[in-house]
């Protein structure tokens, strides 16, 4: 790749952050991290990543909230969002898609699934 893309990973679990970060780095991406919804939005505005991997369950502002805010903000609206979730209930998927997410990945996942999803989204 000519220019490596920046991925912002948002999850309150540091172990998972490590997992996602390392795998994405191995695949050539630059990785930013955030542990809260607030941090996510701030980082988005400041650093303008190419894609956001967003965990649904977080204390405080959860993934849904965060996504809604991102999409409402013209500065962040166009950044593609991939949701990470432990449960894959139909109504959640529907809700997420309505909010503008492009994909859902359910935990536990194969790290290559994440990598592939990111590559797909950035084509």
């Amino acid at each position, binding site marked *: 790749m000519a220019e490596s893309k920046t991925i912002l990973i948002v999850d309150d679990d540091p172990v998972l952050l490590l997992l996602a970060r390392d795998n994405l780095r191995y695949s050539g991406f630059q990785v930013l991290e955030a542990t809260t919804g607030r941090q996510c939005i701030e980082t988005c505005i400041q650093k303008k990543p190419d894609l956001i991997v967003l965990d649904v369950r977080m204390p405080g502002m959860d993934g849904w909230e965060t996504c809604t805010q991102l999409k409402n903000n013209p500065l962040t609206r166009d950044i593609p969002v991939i949701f990470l979730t*432990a449960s894959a209930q139909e109504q959640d998927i529907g809700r997420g898609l309505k909010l503008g997410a492009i994909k859902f990945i359910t935990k536990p996942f194969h790290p290559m699934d994440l990598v592939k999803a990111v590559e797909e989204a950035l084509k």
Partner: protein
Amino acid sequence: MAYSYCHLLYQEFTDSFYRMKKASLQNKITTTMAVVILLLGLGLTFSLKAVLAPSLRKELIKKGTAITRLLAERVAKSFLERDGEQLRKLLQEGKTISSDISYIMVTDTKGDVSAHTFSGMPPGFLQNRTTLTGVQLLDTEKGLIYEIAASIPGTRGIIRVGIGPGLIRRRLANIAGLIIGITILAILLSTLISYGLSKVIIKPIKKLQTGVKKIGEGELDYKIAIHTGDEIEKLADEFNRMAEKLKDSYSGLEEKVRKATEGLAEEKHRLESVIQSMGEGLFITDRKGEIISWNVSAEKITGYPAKEVLGRKCKEIFRITSEDGRDLCLSQCPMKEAFQKKEIVLFPLNPTPYITRKDGQRVPVSVISAPILDNKNNVGGGVETFRDITREKEIDRMRSEFVSLVSHELRTPLTAIKGFTDTLLRKDIKIAATTGQEYLRIIQRQSNRLTRLIGDFLDVSKIESGKMEMRWEKVCIPELITELTNNFRTKTTKHTFSIFVTKDFPVIIADRDKVEQILVNLIDNAIKYSPHGGEIRITGENGNEFIKCSVSDQGVGIKKEDIDRLFEKFQRINPEISRQTPGTGLGLAICQGLVKLHNGEIHVQSQYGRGTTFTFTLAKEPGGKKQPHG
């Protein structure tokens, strides 16, 4: 005309006959006797003609003949001597023999009258008679005359004696008159007698009548007093006996009815008590759906007191709606369905039915309707019972929340384990040895965490379902505390441990492993939440039926508002700290459960920033009394 008259007479006769049928006994007897006597009299009178008349006639003729013969002999001499005057004299004498003699005549064979007793000339029809001897019946103006002719002996003369007139008729009339007179007398007499007699009979019958009437009206104690010594007295006795028996069976019946009524009243009371004491709301409606009964629980759940509800339609008060406000009563009225199907109907629980209280609040309920059927299987009304299922829904919600929490908690370490394993197995990259080691350590830690998590979940599950097995044995707690503290001392350098146990601390009967689990948990927390070190103090006290232990630290403490949530599952109060160290968020919940299994209680005291103390009690023996609230 004659026909209609006869018809009238006939009508009169039958009417009076019918009337007589209904007349009193007395009158009946009297009338009958009178009628009988009358008929007798009449019968006698009329049979006179047939029976008496001929014999009378015979008598008369006999007598007449005898007189005529006698006279014939007397006048023989005079006739022969043609002594007219003597003849006349004799005839006149002869006439006086009997008053019945009308005339006497002497004629010769040619019919010329020689002498007679008439004052003037003998009447024409008597002259020129030529009969010689025998009896002749003459029909004259004065009536029937029997003429007896006999020949005067030794002469050719005939003597004729006329007897009558209308003699027989007169005689008969006399007798008839006598009979009628006697009859009338007899009738009068019989009337009097029958009146008297019937009184004798009627009086007791009237007494009987009164008595029976009184008995019939319910005076079963009335005794008919008749002492005539005849069948009527016997009848009266039977009536009295019957009244007695009736009285007995009535009082027997009354007793039975009273008992049955009492029994029914008791049943009703019982039923009423049951209905009023039910935890579920219950109301009864009639066939039209109007409420006729509303129990205490119904009042409580709906907020409507019974007196406001009685007489109103069920659908006015008890309107069932869905959570989003749709009216479910219209389409699926449970009462209507129960009436139609004539069986018990459970209102579907999906979507959850709600009713609106008087104060506007909405309550989720489960509703059952049943029809009240009579003997002929017709619907006479309905019964509806309902239960406030707010708590159940809450529990349901909590349970499904728990399940999703658990699945989330389990997936987290699993994600790490799988993720890092897959990363290590990536064929497209090369991972440095040190990094690889790090990954493996993460996998190891997360596996341990998962193991602990699963263990904790099982503990929680067992505690909550009451299926936790307890191994009761003698436990020396001070010994246990010392052992654990020694272990912990090796795990931390920042902390100091001090133990304070009273001298009289007894050996208790408890589940040693569980007590260890409690202490380990608390000490673990103490260490975890005092990251800057400090003293960890463990104490033990003796009590009456309980012993008391405590674990205190000098750590970060707990905010007042967080204390309530402390013992709930998965409550990570202090995320920064709990994040760093492996914990399941179930520790305190399990502690509480285990303490409760020992009939004890666990409490916490804390000052934010200064430290925390957990205190718990354990019963000295299992099955001991629960600690009073204090």
